[in-house]
Every structure is written in structure tokens, then in C-alpha cells.
């Protein structure tokens, strides 16, 4: 039944906490050596999913398979999985070396072997020479790397990471993202990574799982998630976007912002309401007369690489990213290339109200 290449399989997983459902019928598989990221806003169930894989929570319904074997009720210490905890959870009564050696000592690995492996790990995370330090004498970034070393030294099949970079400053975060990714590729270990930072997810992952309110909204590689968001929520959550209500006039023609735009989507039917998503960087500003529509620049913000301009086109206000600044108050024309217009079915009930 379970495909061989799947390392971990979650089948119909639901989880209740005191009557509140936090996971609703989750189905997810993770392949060997894959870097999977669970992405979503807080309270979406991503951490609970991770904790179910780690064995810290048991699902109310459903089954967890590891290499085809049911491990749903296996306690954490019997799983070939290690975790990097959100706030590291390093043992304050042990020094750096003993923290890293903890798992190996429990597994009764011979002392020489332990020393060798701990040294190798300290090297890997660039902290050789720190072995005798107390854990609380280290900076956040160093503690982070100790936490990773403490998990990796056990050579787990899967490494679970629960927002491991959340407490670090931006620059260190970016460095650690690259470091983690290269570590994962070098060691060939499966990573399951939880974050609410979409940029982090896109940078590091092979597969991104977008979650919301205990549901999985979309699974796919970063490019696909970004370019082909399954619905307006994913589009909004992954990167910045303009989301508008539109009407499908017919195949490959959609009406929004008072104009019929040619697009590449078809099969929605005629006169059907749809959600239209356009990325701010995909809107081209042209001369007033040659655009498909035109509008007035309401505000201009300098964002470093680009300018962010809000353009009032009458029915809606569009967010536009461009390296060329248009002065506030000026009239501009707007062009959108057909394949940059993403059309999706409107999200059901409460979901669409929030976006």
C-alpha cells in the first residue's frame, strides 16, 4: 500500500486538544533526503504536525507510517527521528560537549566513538574549541548550532526543526538558512522544517506544505507554490500579491478592475466569479495612453531594491513593485502580461473574507 520511496506517511491525521480541532484530516508524505517545509501562520497546525511526527503528541485519528511501519503510538525515544526545538532546549546543567554527547551516551556508544563523533559535529557547526563552555555562555546563534549538532550527532533518518531560526536576527538567519541547506545536502538527511517565514520556506525547501486552520492548502515545490498558488490565501501568504474579485468572461479572458484582461487560464466557465492574483513585480507601468488600464500613483515607498507604489485604478488599488519610480500624483498606464494573471476559484465561506 505505502509506496516504498516514502519515508514518512501521514494518513488521515486529525488532532483535538480539549475539544478544539487543530488538525483536520491531514495527508502528507515525505520522501528520503527531501527538505520539506511546513509553512503557515501561527495556529495553523504546523508545529502540531511536527510534534506528531516526533512522537510528542499522538493523533486523535489517523496513522503515522515510518518506512511503511505504523509508528503512531511509538514513544519519541524509540523513533529514529531527532528534533531541533524552537528555543533549543539545551540542557543547562551540561556543557556544550556533554549536551552534544547526550544522545550517544544514552545509546551506550563507546567512549572513543562518542568523542570522535562529538568532535566531528563541533567541527561541522564551526564550534570546535567550545566544548567546555557552559551553554548559557553562548550567543543565540551558537546555541542554535549546538542544538543542531546535538540532534545530528545521532545520525537520525529524519531531522525535525521547529522554527529553529526564529530567535535569530535577520543577517544570522540568512546565513543559517544557507548553512542548514548545505548541511542537509551534504549529510543526505531528510529535514522537516516548520516556519511561518515564507521567504525561508522558498529559499530552503524541496517541497513546501502550506497550511492553514489545520488544513493543508497546497503541497508543491517552491516555484510552483509561488507561481501557481492554489488559492488566494496561499498567494497572499507566499510573497506579496494583489488579490481581486473578478469575473471569467470566457476562456482566456477575465474581467477585473474595469477591464477585460487576456489570460492563459481556461475551464472555469463563462460569467463565473473568480479570484485574480497578480504579483506586484508582474505589473508593468507604461505611458498613460498605452496601458490596458490607467491609474494615479497614490503613494511611493522606497524598499531598497525597488519602489513600492500604490496605484489607484478606480475600482481597486494595485500594489506595484518597480525599479523605476513614478512620482506621486502622476497618471500611469498599466499592462499585465497574460501568463502573469493567476486565476483561481474563490475560497469557500470564511476563508475568502479574510484575504
Amino acid at each position, binding site marked *: 500500500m505505502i509506496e516504498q520511496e516514502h519515508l514518512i506517511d501521514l494518513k488521515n491525521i486529525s488532532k483535538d486538544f480539549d475539544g478544539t480541532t487543530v488538525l483536520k484530516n491531514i495527508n502528507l508524505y515525505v520522501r528520503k533526503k527531501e527538505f520539506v517545509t511546513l509553512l503557515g501562520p501561527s495556529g495553523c497546525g504546523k508545529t502540531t504536525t511536527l510534534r506528531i511526527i516526533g512522537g510528542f503528541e499522538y493523533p486523535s485519528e489517523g496513522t503515522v507510517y515510518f518506512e511503511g511501519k505504523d509508528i503512531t503510538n511509538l514513544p519519541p*525515544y524509540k523513533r529514529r527521528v531527532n528534533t531541533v*526545538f524552537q528555543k533549543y532546549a539545551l540542557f543547562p546543567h551540561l556543557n556544550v560537549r556533554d549536551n552534544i554527547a547526550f544522545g550517544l551516551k544514552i545509546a551506550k556508544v563507546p567512549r572513543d566513538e562518542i568523542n570522535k563523533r562529538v568532535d566531528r559535529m563541533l567541527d561541522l557547526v564551526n564550534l570546535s574549541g567550545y566544548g567546555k563552555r557552559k551553554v548559557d555562555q553562548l550567543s543565540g546563534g551558537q546555541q542554535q548550532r549546538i542544538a543542531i549538532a546535538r540532534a545530528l550527532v545521532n545520525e537520525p533518518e529524519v531531522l525535525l526543526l521547529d522554527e529553529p531560526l526564529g530567535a535569530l536576527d535577520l543577517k544570522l538567519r540568512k546565513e543559517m538558512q544557507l548553512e542548514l541547506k548545505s548541511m542537509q545536502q551534504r549529510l543526505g538527511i531528510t529535514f522537516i522544517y516548520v516556519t511561518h517565514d515564507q521567504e525561508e520556506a522558498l529559499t530552503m525547501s524541496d517541497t513546501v506544505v502550506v497550511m492553514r486552520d489545520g488544513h493543508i492548502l497546497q503541497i508543491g515545490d517552491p516555484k510552483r507554490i509561488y507561481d501557481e498558488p492554489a488559492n488566494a490565501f496561499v498567494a497572499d501568504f507566499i510573497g506579496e500579491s494583489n488579490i481581486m474579485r473578478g469575473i471569467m468572461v470566457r476562456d482566456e479572458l477575465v474581467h477585473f478592475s474595469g477591464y477585460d484582461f487576456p489570460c492563459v487560464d481556461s475551464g472555469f466557465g463563462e460569467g463565473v466569479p473568480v479570484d485574480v492574483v497578480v504579483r506586484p513585480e508582474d505589473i508593468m507601468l507604461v505611458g498613460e495612453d498605452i496601458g490596458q488600464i490607467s491609474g494615479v500613483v497614490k503613494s511611493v515607498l522606497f524598499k531598497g531594491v525597488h519602489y513600492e507604489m500604490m496605484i489607484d485604478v478606480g475600482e481597486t488599488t494595485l500594489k506595484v513593485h518597480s525599479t523605476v519610480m513614478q512620482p506621486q500624483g502622476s497618471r500611469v498606464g498599466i499592462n499585465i502580461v497574460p501568463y502573469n494573471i493567476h486565476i483561481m476559484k474563490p475560497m469557500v465561506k470564511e476563508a475568502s473574507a479574510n484575504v
Partner: protein
Amino acid sequence: MYNMTLPWWGWAMMLVGLAAFIGMLIISIRRNHGVKRSLFASPYILWMILFTVVPVILIAYYAFTDANGVFTLNNFRNFWDSNYESNKVIMEAMGELGAAYISRGTVNVDTLVYSLWMAFKCTVICLLLGYPAALFMADRNMKLGSTLVVLFIIPMWMNFLLRTIAWMSLLEDNGLINNFLRWLGFEGVQLMYNSEAVLLGMIYNFLPFMVFPIYTVINKMDYRLSEAAADLGCNSWKTLYKVVMPLSVPGVISGITMVFMPSVTTFFIPRMLGGGNTMMFGDLIESKFLVEGNWNVGSALSLIMMVLILISLSILRKADPNGEGGGIA
């Protein structure tokens, strides 16, 4: 009041003590927050001076003087040999021959040793009972945890004398337990008036002081540490042994201090549950003051007790240098 006419050096001692206290106060004001903030502490400081500093100095004064207010070390000799006074009289009257008629009165030392032994037993048993209880109460998955905490606290709202007397009505020859046994057709048993009953009373009264410091430390421990241990291959026992226990040491030390100190100085419980068959150091001091009216020896015994407590505190402090247990140690 008993001999309140201090000689000049008694007053001098008092003045030096007060001066030292006020000096330390001024230094701490300078170092810390300045005068304005420490102004708020003045009622407390006044209280301290009146009811802590002065009494301690007075105890020291009485301990080193005789009934006439003359400096002497005889009170401490009396601690070591309670027959000291009479032996001296015999030796003076009989000379060399008197040696056959004198003996060292060991009651004071024996009582101290007995008290320390009882306090030790009480502390060990409280630890053995209290640690699992604290663990149980601090368990995240235990929905009853907070209820248990309240159940532990409620008896502490009652006066400790009342609690002890309540035990009497349980253990008496005509108490609840014996009546129940007789109702079942058994012989009554002697439950009271022995050192086990005293120990029971002590444990009952002091157990919360062991449980709460440990509970507090375990409760505020990051539960993720236990999860991390489980993640790294520890089952529950190993997690307890490798992570929870080492990290709860400050609470244990605080608990030991808070049980051991009142245990050593226990009084009343031995009189009630021990029925005068056993005497602890606290009762001894009390009887010196209230029965014999010998304030000087009583003060000397108190001083010895204080020094012992200070020594044990400083030893315990070494094990918890940061005071993480939130205790007195």
C-alpha cells in the same frame, strides 16, 4: 524583667552591634539604589533592629554572663557537662578524692545529638515522600496537579499546634485508630509517647516545606527539556534521572534547608506526641528559660543552635550558589 541592668560592656556590645548593622545598611544604600528608594525599607529595618538584631545581641550577652552579669564561659561548659556546677562544688570540697563522685552530665549534648538525628531522619523521609509528590504535582499531563497543590496548602492554613493536637486524637490510647482497632476486635496498640510518633508529627508538619520548593523548581522547568531528553533516547526514568533530577537540585536544597532547620529546633511536638519521654533541643532551651529560669544557659544553648544552623546553611549554599531554589539557603 530578668536582670536588665547591663554592665558597661554589655551596653558597649549592643552599641557595636547596632553600629555594625547600621554601617552595613549605609554601605548597601550607597551601593544600590540611593537613599530615596531605601526609605521605603525603613519600617522593615526598624523592625529588624528591634526584633532581630537587639534580641540576638541580648542572647549573646546572656550566653557569656552569669546571673550577676559577670563575664563567664560557664554556660558553655554547662552545655558540655550539665553537672559542671555541682561537680565543681564536689571537687572543691573533697579535693582529689572527689573524682570518684563526679560524672559528666551529658543531657544537653545527648539531646542535641538526638535532635540532629531526628531532624536528619525527618528530612530524609520528607525528601523521599516529597520529591515524588512534587514531581506528580508538576506533571504537565496531570489535570489534578493544581488541585493537589491546594490540598497540600489547606492543612497549612491551620495552626501547627492544632494540627499536632489533631494527631494526638488519632493516635491516643482511646483515639480514633485504637478505637477502630478494638471495634474490629484487635488489641489496642501503643502509638503515642515514643520517638516514632514524634517523627510522624514532624514529618506531617514539615512535609509541605519540602514539597513546595521542589514543586516550584520542577514546575518552572522548561518542559521542552524533558521532550529533548525523550527525543535523544531517554525513557521516562532516564529523563527523570538525567535531566529533571539534576535540574531540581536547587529546589531539593531549599527543601532540605526548610525542613531541617525547623526540625532541629522542634519543640512542642515531642512534648505532645512524645509525652515527655523524648526531649528535643528546642524543648531543652524552652525548659531552661521557662522552667529553670536560667536565661544564661538557655541563651548559650540557643547560640550553639544558631551557630550550627549557620554552618549547615553555608554548606548547603555551596551546592546552590545562585539561590535558584528560591530558598533561604
